[in-house]
């Protein structure tokens, strides 16, 4: 009975918290010096390879020319190209809309697939076919089929939407298939005894799902969910094939107008600025969750 040993262990003791220790590994000051030197050396070698390559000057001019990067960032329709920065706003809007719809739609599919009643049988089969189909078909083809197919139907309302709407529809269809499987994994991870306990307390099936199963299931799959959404952010760029001027398309217009690829570098940087915060947020969520479990205390 050593007094200091009681209670929850401090998270730091496991080396799981704080960015530094986990990235650098254990070892203190000397390790930090060595890792810094090693990092500098690796970067120096990579930079030397890049700068000393025979075509380096040409590549730097074509991909990293500051003047072209700036021009493509601000855009100039009078010269035939649009602002990559402004076009990114379309990606952001598509991403947010698609993400909300996917979260809802995918959950419905996952719940249908897990349903047990005989009445639900045809829906279970349909949802299975849906998931198989949209996970198997390349997203680009789904975007093309919807973006060019639906307007060609010449229906009132559905055929006269903006291009971005078809793009979001395709993203939702494709990503919901993946995300529903993530949800399903989460639902399966909740032990059957939890359901049994809840039902024995007199909770209805719906209430059990809502208050017992879903909160645990969703918490378990937050990291993979966020992972899918990071991927979704980039894939909004594919909607450009339908003629919507999003960041990647704006970059392509610039590049083929003036024959310089620096605009793509600008688009890449903008996408990184968009995805890195979400990636870091995912890390934090994972860490927090892990700490909580290691603490062994339900909160």
């Amino acid at each position, binding site marked *: 009975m050593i007094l200091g040993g009681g209670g929850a262990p401090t998270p730091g003791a496991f080396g799981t918290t704080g960015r530094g220790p986990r990235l650098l590994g254990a070892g203190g000051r000397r390790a930090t010096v060595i890792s810094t030197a090693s990092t500098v050396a690796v970067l120096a070698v990579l930079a030397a390879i890049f700068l000393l390559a025979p*075509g380096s000057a*040409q*590549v730097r*001019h*074509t*991909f990293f020319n500051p003047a072209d990067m700036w021009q493509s960032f601000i855009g100039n*329709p*009078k*010269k*035939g*190209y*649009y602002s990559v920065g402004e076009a990114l706003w379309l990606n952001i809007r598509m991403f947010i809309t698609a993400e909300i719809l996917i979260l809802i739609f995918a959950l419905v599919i996952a719940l249908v697939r897990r349903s047990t009643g005989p009445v639900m049988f045809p829906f279970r089969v349909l949802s299975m076919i849906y998931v198989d189909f949209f996970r198997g078909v390349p997203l680009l083809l789904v975007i093309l089929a919807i973006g*060019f197919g639906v*307007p*060609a139907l*010449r229906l009132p309302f559905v*055929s006269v939407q903006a*291009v971005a709407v078809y793009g979001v529809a395709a993203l939702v269809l494709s990503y919901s298939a993946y995300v529903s499987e993530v949800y399903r994994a989460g639902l399966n991870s909740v032990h059957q005894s939890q359901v049994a306990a809840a039902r024995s307390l007199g909770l209805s099936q719906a209430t059990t799902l809502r208050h017992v199963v879903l909160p645990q299931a969703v918490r378990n799959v937050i990291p993979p969910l966020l992972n899918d959404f990071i991927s979704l952010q980039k894939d909004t760029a594919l909607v*450009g*094939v*339908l*003629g*919507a*001027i999003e960041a990647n*398309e704006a970059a*392509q*217009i*610039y*590049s*083929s*107008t*003036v*024959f*310089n*690829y620096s605009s793509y570098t600008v688009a890449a940087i903008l996408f990184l600025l968009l995805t890195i915060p979400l990636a870091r947020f995912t890390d934090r969520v994972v860490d927090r969750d892990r700490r909580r479990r290691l603490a062994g205390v339900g909160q």
Partner: protein
Amino acid sequence: MTAGLAACGSSSSSSSGSGSSSATATSCSNSAIQPDLYQKGQLTVATDQPAYPPWFENNDPANGKGYESAVAYAIAKLLGFTTSQVKWAYEPFNASYAPGPKKFDFDINEISYTPQRATAVTFSSSYYDVQQALVALKNGPIATGHSPAQLKTYVYGDQVGTTSLAFITSQIQPTAQPRVYQTLNDVKEALQTHQIAALVTDTPTAQYISSSEIPGTEMVAQFPSTGEHYGLLFSKGDPLVTCVNKAIATLKSNGTLQRLQKQYLQIYLGVPTIQP
């Protein structure tokens, strides 16, 4: 060839300036240009796929039919190549200006010369002077309403990065953002499904689309020339451009280019010209 030599200096505008002074003295015989070729013993000519009429026919650049195919073979002949020594390579437009060595001697793909583009690649002198034209559905509002003010009110569509797209944004300056597609086929599809009111492309292509490709469309009018022209695309500083420019000048002065334009491009005099 002497006529060609004389005409060369005046016709090659700004793109081929660098290498020409030293190279004018050198011979353009087939054996003399061998070191400059992508593959010895053959002329490797690139274009995009699909290859559209009237620039190519039956999507087959190697049949010698269509304006660009015929021009490529005429140039090859002047450089001393037989028909079978001309090899065709596939080069998407978006890849044609990538840095580094090219997989062809020149690319012939309706690529317009601009000074900015000429900083990345080398262009030959003009083998076709371009005017942009407007294609729309026959009963669409743009068929009758195309005053400069009215033209600004429509939704246009075009292929990514083309000078036709630049013409829309810089000259027509529509209020709605144009739709920008990966290929010209996508643009045509969008026109057919009423997603766009009109597309802009060079007059011969416009003529082909409206007369034989998409039923129910018409070429509304063409726009005045902005001095735009098509040039063959070479990797930056390729010395071969000097001899190709000589060949183009010869084809100009002996009337071959004019004859081929008449044969394949059918520039009807009746096409009205409107202001953007």
